[in-house]
């Protein structure tokens, strides 16, 4: 990842290669939830290039660390979503036992 910060470490633009709205928008959300962040936004300079620029401006912590925190947060959230989802599916299965699942043999894990 390239980091372009011309003036100081608290105002930086990060270039994420091979990424699109999928990650950038979720990251922007987590960054905006951080009280350290004054401003955060992202742009895709050209639709043909798989690249996003994420702009982060912060108060105390340097932008780099704040972005890292945001990644960590998003990951924690994902893990929680996965855990809750798996539990909900198990719950549903025990309450409604499957009567016919012809392709359940596909369910490898």
């Amino acid at each position, binding site marked *: 990842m390239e980091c372009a910060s011309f003036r100081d470490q608290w105002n930086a633009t990060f270039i994420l290669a091979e990424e699109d709205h*999928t990650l950038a928008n979720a990251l922007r959300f987590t960054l905006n939830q951080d009280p350290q962040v004054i401003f955060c936004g992202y742009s895709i300079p050209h639709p043909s290039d798989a690249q996003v620029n994420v702009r982060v401006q912060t*108060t105390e912590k340097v932008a780099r*660390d704040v972005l*890292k925190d945001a990644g960590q*947060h998003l990951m*924690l959230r994902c893990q929680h979503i996965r855990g809750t989802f798996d539990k909900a599916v198990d719950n549903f299965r025990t309450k409604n036992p499957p009567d016919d699942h012809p392709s359940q043999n596909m369910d490898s894990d």
Partner: protein
Amino acid sequence: MSDFDSEAMADAGVENPKLPPHLELRRTRVLCKADAPTSTDTVQYSGAYASLGVDNSLRFDDFRNNFRVQVNRISHEDMEFDMVGVDPSIANALRRILLAELPTMAIEKVLIANNTSVVQDEVLAHRLGLIPIKVDPRLFDYLSENDTSNEKNTIVFKLHVRCAERGQRLTATSNELTWLPKGSELLKTSESLTSTSKPETYTSFTCSQDSMPEFAGNPISVYPDIIIAKLGFGQEIELEAHAVKGVGKTHAKWSPVATCWYRMLPEVVLTEEIEGKKAELLKQKCPANVFEIEDLADGRKRATVARPRACTLCRECIRDGDDWEKRVSLRRVKDHFIFTIESTGALPPEVLFTEAVKILEDKCERVISDLS
């Protein structure tokens, strides 16, 4: 400016005062008015309500307490569940990953030995590509440009059909695609003719795929009964199809879902009592049958919202004049998603979703490791 914000945040950290109801409504609901929906955006910035002393940042503990998932329907090919307490940006990321970034196997290369049918080679190849293959893509590797096709990255199918009966027509379906666990059977003709070595085929499998524990007694099949071509008398198709691993953003044939979507939970609120004739009218106006009439003890009839989930937000109920818009308030809950996944058959829908979340986690991890 920034100092002020962080101070306000620190103060609000202990006990977070509630937003006034009109702001809370706009923060959590999309309001669907007769002409257009309003407050459609989500307020993401943590300091958005700093001047009111309200902290808008979401702490992980709060997220953990509020987030819930409820499964409504699940089968081997589709599922519907409610995901509550998550921002649209994350729900949308998961939807996008399900559509475009989860790998499956699909036919990528078709070696046509003979095709005398009316379906042209390229059309035939395209049709074959779109046939879902029922195999767990996690058992395979990607085939990169310099790789040779081997048993870890390629699945080979054979199709040989011929209409032999005069006056008859033969429909070739996907059932006729037979899996070749030992790899390609077509010989490379050009330069290898002179050499004495073993004749080369278009793949180089070191072992038969059906000897692998994953596929022993569990042959790879494709989605059945899909029509590939119709053959007239004497017409013949003989080909070999090579399936490789790929993702939906390269080509939709690799998308593991038929489609995948979410909608926000509709909320219908009657802001005043609607009785008698008006109640009847309201019930009759709604094509989705959201409203019901309730008999009160004193013989009056009152409209109630019986099935808010059925609401399609057609806004038929608030169309006739301003007074209806005042009586009925149509909203959508911004953090409640009714998520539907329709699998094409490679993996069951619940596995697809967990895999999608894992991919988002991987993306985060890449960001973290890049910055470390």
